[in-house]
């Protein structure tokens, strides 16, 4: 809030992001690790989006993955329409539509021929959903666990619809066999450092904008709402609007993360907006420190990397979920403010 405090945070965030740019050199551009770290950064960004709505504004959104998933589907739709895959029907009709005996490309797929549109949709479709949610739920004085449950329900509805409408969405298989993203002369292959840098740059920009917002008066008002909603109301603020705004911002971030994720995963799947992922995001933020953007970001990376490592190591092949389970429980018990809180306590000051 005061100047010093500002500069400290911006400095720390700056260092963190700066460091990320050197990862490829450290990894010697090994395509495998490049790809892995790219995916981690996408998920980290996803955690940042929840940190904004939950950690700062106190909206426990158990359905945050829905924004992520929609973003990734938008990107996937654009990339799908560019495939020269053999299965595609007349006029580049996606393979799964051919399989489901769809004859012509449905109207809502048409605009995705343009990548630009795809990218915009990847941000604005989630935001629109967030707006709808905000106006129907948050402005309607629904709070606490009810928000949690309703957002979860919304997530399920979207998930079920995607599963059910597989003639248009690819259903359980998702949208697979995509082309690699090409922008001008640049080709963003999932294993290529170029992709890593793209993701890191986007991440840095988004992270800093978000940080700026949280440091602005609006950001303080978000936190005020988290601490005491009523007091904010009696100071004349329209809490509903602010909550909606927070949700839209976090939706946009999640959407962006989703689009990047599609690029590195090379497909979009309904599991990107299924309950398990959505709950994991909450865990990431809790472990990393929900009230710190960077904390949540790191939380996501620590947890996902940990899971990845354990589930491949021969010793933990069968017990890795036990380990993770313990980590969750213990961190909730002993690190109420997550790793970030821990570090603040013992290392800063």
């Amino acid at each position, binding site marked *: 809030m005061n100047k010093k405090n500002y500069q400290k945070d911006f400095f720390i965030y700056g260092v963190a992001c700066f460091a990320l740019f050197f990862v490829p050199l450290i990894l010697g551009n090994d395509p495998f690790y490049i790809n892995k770290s790219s995916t981690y950064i996408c998920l980290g960004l996803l955690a940042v989006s929840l940190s904004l709505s939950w950690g700062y504004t106190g909206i426990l959104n158990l359905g945050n993955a829905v924004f992520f998933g929609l973003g990734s589907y938008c990107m996937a739709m654009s990339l799908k329409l560019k495939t020269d895959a053999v299965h595609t029907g007349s006029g580049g009709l996606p393979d799964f539509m051919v399989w489901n005996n769809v004859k012509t490309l449905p109207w809502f797929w048409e605009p995705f021929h343009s990548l630009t549109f795809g990218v915009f949709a990847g941000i604005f479709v989630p935001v629109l959903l967030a707006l709808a949610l905000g106006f129907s739920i948050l402005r309607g004085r629904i709070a606490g666990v009810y928000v949690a449950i309703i957002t979860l329900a919304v997530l399920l509805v979207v998930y079920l619809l995607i599963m059910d409408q597989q003639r248009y969405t690819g259903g359980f298989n998702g949208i697979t066999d995509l082309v690699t993203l090409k922008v001008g002369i640049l080709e963003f292959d999932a294993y290529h450092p170029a992709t890593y840098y793209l993701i890191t740059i986007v991440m840095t920009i988004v992270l800093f904008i978000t940080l700026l917002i949280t440091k602005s008066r609006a950001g303080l008002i978000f936190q005020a709402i988290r*601490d005491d909603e009523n007091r904010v109301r009696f100071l004349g603020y329209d809490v509903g609007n602010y909550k909606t705004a927070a949700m839209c911002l976090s939706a946009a971030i999640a959407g962006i993360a989703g689009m990047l994720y599609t690029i590195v995963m090379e497909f979009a799947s309904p599991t990107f907006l299924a309950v398990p992922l959505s709950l994991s995001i909450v865990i990431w933020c809790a472990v990393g420190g929900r009230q710190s953007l960077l904390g949540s970001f790191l939380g996501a990376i620590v947890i996902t990397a940990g899971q990845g490592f354990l589930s491949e190591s021969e010793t933990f092949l069968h017990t890795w979920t036990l380990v993770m389970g313990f980590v969750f429980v213990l961190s909730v018990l002993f690190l109420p403010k997550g790793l970030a809180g821990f570090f603040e306590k013992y290392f800063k000051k």
Partner: protein
Amino acid sequence: MENKKKLLSLESIIVDFDGFKAVNDFDLNIFDGELRCLIGPNGAGKTTVLDIICGKTKSSSGKVIFNNESITNLEEHLISRKGIGRKFQIPSVFKELTVQENLYVALNSDLGFFKNVFKFFNKSDREKIEEIASFVGLKDELKKTAQFLSHGQTQWLEIALVVLKQPKLILMDEPTAGMTSYETNQTAELFNKIKKTQTLIVVEHDMGFVKEISDIISVMHQGKLLSEGNASFIENDPKVKEAYLGKKGITNA
């Protein structure tokens, strides 16, 4: 007193909680610039009346007129924008923000999201904040996180939040509850300062404090207005005596 302008009037307000009438056909008139105390035994409906005025609770029937316009059952933030501030019984401040940040949130006239999204702390804000902080005696605590303030300090911080908005009318719910006598005196002083510029309605139990600050006292009983007048009049009103005080004197109630 009658020559004064009527600032707020409640007309036959009824609040019905599934059958239980917490406030029952209640009328109240507040005049510009006065400090009105609202007293009464527990469950008389004092807090509920404040809730009605500031919109926290919606009335089942009746009217609330403020500044000659009806604010009946408006949304809280709209009522607040019309110039009514509310201080709660349990002090409600932003625990995880510093005193300074608390005040910075309150110190704001354009309340829309987009007006605030990229707005940062500047010099003039700082001056205003230090001014109000010294007004409520928190000048040395600006950097402290609110949750570490003493009880009295928390109360004062909330009062500061309310006063910062320069409302025409301030509703105070038991501002001295749980305060040490020293803190109570401080608060009394504070009130007499605020009184100069604002109209107040104060719900209080501490009669000493009430006498200290109030002009007129309204007594509530079972959701109705029982009696109204200055301290001495109330003290001698038999109705009040038997409804509320029993045989004992009001002073040691």
